[in-house]
């Protein structure tokens, strides 16, 4: 209920902010778009991250939280937010409009995997075993929570609609784990980083699931801004804040909560693996 209220409140605030036109140039506020695809259930984490980024950038960093990547991507495209923490997939979809600000470093690399999970007692060991099952994706614009599994199916000559009896979108990696753990669906596609963090934070939840397949390592979901604004001082200041987060006390706290090592400058090449899968999917259409 607490989470629900907070999300409603944030949604309301977001809607109010959205109603204001144009950029917020010259304002002390810096708006960062995020989605519940990420770990959105920890208010303490968001507070700490917001404080750390505010301290480092000199702006008041506010989060604009939306349900889907599509919505957040839309906000960034409209300029309703100054920057957004996106997934590699939507970044690549709008590569002409977006530039990379920073890429989180996890276990020493700016990379992560997609996990295919099933219930803890499930007998399936491969994706093939899940034919006819109900499956949970996190977001149609998520790399790890959708693209990876779908392209795996395409490679096997299947489509998600035919392969799975039913597929649902939970718009949250944690929700995918919840859906699988509760038995609402048999399997799910989930961000490997999120699953690993949950395994330490909410072991009771992940214990009811098990990972049966892991994808190749691909570029970690990046922080993006509009390409033409990259030279703006406030964007540069925010980028600097991201990159130096590890050097600040609050920043280090936030990174510890996120179980990240820090942030690094990223090149689009980092997302070549995702781009390749995107092309496979495009070819099919």
């Amino acid at each position, binding site marked *: *209920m607490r989470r629900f209220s907070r999300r409603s409140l944030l949604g309301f605030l977001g809607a109010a902010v959205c109603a204001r036109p144009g950029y917020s140039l010259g304002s002390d506020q810096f708006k960062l778009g995020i989605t519940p695809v990420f770990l959105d259930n920890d208010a303490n984490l968001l507070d700490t991250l917001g404080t750390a980024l505010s301290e480092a950038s000199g702006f008041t960093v506010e989060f604009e939280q939306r349900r889907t990547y599509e919505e957040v991507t839309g906000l960034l495209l409209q300029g309703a937010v100054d920057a957004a923490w996106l997934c590699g997939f939507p970044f690549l979809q709008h590569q002409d409009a977006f530039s990379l600000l920073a890429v989180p470093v996890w276990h020493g690399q700016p990379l992560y995997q997609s996990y295919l999970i099933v219930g803890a007692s499930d007998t399936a060991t491969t994706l093939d075993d899940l034919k006819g099952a*109900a499956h949970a994706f996190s977001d149609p614009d998520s790399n790890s929570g959708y693209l990876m599994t779908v392209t795996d199916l395409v490679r096997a000559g299947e489509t998600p609609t035919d392969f799975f009896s*039913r597929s*649902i*979108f939970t718009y949250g990696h944690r929700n995918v784990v*919840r859906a699988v753990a509760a*038995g609402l669906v048999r399997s799910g596609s989930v961000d490997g980083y999120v699953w690993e963090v949950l395994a330490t934070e909410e072991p009771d939840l992940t214990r009811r699931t098990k990972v049966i397949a892991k994808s190749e390592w691909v570029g970690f979901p990046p922080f993006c801004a509009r390409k033409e604004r990259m030279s703006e001082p406030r964007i540069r200041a925010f980028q600097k804040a991201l990159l130096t987060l590890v050097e600040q006390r609050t920043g280090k706290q936030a990174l510890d909560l996120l179980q990240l090592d820090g942030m690094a400058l990223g090149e689009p090449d980092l997302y070549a693996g995702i781009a390749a899968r995107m092309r496979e999917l495009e070819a099919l259409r």
Partner: protein
Amino acid sequence: MRPVLKRLPLTARVALVAAGLMVLLGIVASQQVLRTLGLVQTERIRELATTHVEALSVALGPLVLRNDVWEVYDTLERAASASSKGRIAFTAVSDASGQVLAASDPFRAPTGSPFDALAQEAQALAGLNFSGSQATIRLTAPLVFQGRRVGRIATELNVADLVAERARVARLLVLWNALVTGGLALVGFFAMRRMMAPVTLLAEKMSVSAEAPEPITDRELLSMESEFGRLARTYNTMANAVREKAEAERRLAERERFVSLGRLSSSLAHEINNPLGGLLNATDTIQTYADNPEVVRKSTELLERGLRHLRDVVRVTLEQNRIDRAGSPAGPDDFEDLQLLIGPEIRRRAQKLVWEIEVDQVTLARFPSAQLRQILLNLLLNACSAAGQGGEVSLRATEEETGLRLRVVDSGPGLDDAARQRLLSSDPVPPGGGVGLRLVHDLVHDMNGKIEVQRTSSANAIELVLPYAKEVDN
């Protein structure tokens, strides 16, 4: 049960009846309380379930329309975890086609499974009834959104706490009623005992002595109020009357001892007076012929015989009423004395006396002298009086195995009813008539003897059988 109840003292019975009524009242009151509690709980559950279903309808309506499995599940799960006391145990939602869209426990109701299986044994929200002892209540209700039915909701409410509350209330009621009833019954018992105390006292006083009930003392009377006070005073009046009557009877009986002697007095006076003339003549003769030794000797002999006779008469008379004779055994002397006592009466009426004593001294010694004399003297005097002038009176005493048989017969007309009643019954009798007969009856009764009256055409017989007393055997 009934005889046991009847054997109990009245105080205990009244207290028991009061306690029984209290128990009955307690049961009825408890039933009422439990029924009301049940109604209140049902209303509470219905309100809760209505709110639950309405809230879900509002929240789930658009999600069900969109067939959004995840959001329906997420909403149900959050609603369940947010419900207080885990009231909502399970909820499932179906789409319009009757398939489960999502349930709070998907393992139990998987998405796509038929919803009807869940709706079975479920109550409709409208007619909700909560009376059983199950820990959960199953409910089903249509899911209405924007005025149309988009699916159905089945929910299980956890009512274990309410059931437990009802059980607890029932236990407390039983315990409380038992305590109150027990306490009041105890109070009732003591109150009843206190109130009934005068009756108990009265019963005790009455049972002290059947012959002379003991009156209630003034001090005891003080503690009695109203009806019991009046009752006690009436009882005292009656008790005193009984005592006075008993006292009067005792005095009467005492007097009767002397009645026989009184009746003898005139004949005894004659018995003494008649020889006196002869005796005085003898003294004259002695004075006149003082110098004639022969005459003096004869006169002196005459004088001596006369005086001896007088002495005997006086002795017998004295003997008859000597109190210290009580307890001394009877003997042949007693019969001789009786004959001497009755002799003047027989002679005065010119009657014939038949005297047959066939009892030896040892047998007679087993009976008390004074009583035997009183009994026989009275019967003989009555016989003389009944036989009339020139009549016949007889006494026959014989030994039996069981005791001494005494038979007094006279040629008179027999006993009238009043006399017969005096002799034969122990009932109180009006004074007068049959003098001495009640004394005979009492004495025979005290000796455990039997009295029989026989009447033939010419004679009237009274027969007594006096059993041997055991103490005399020793």
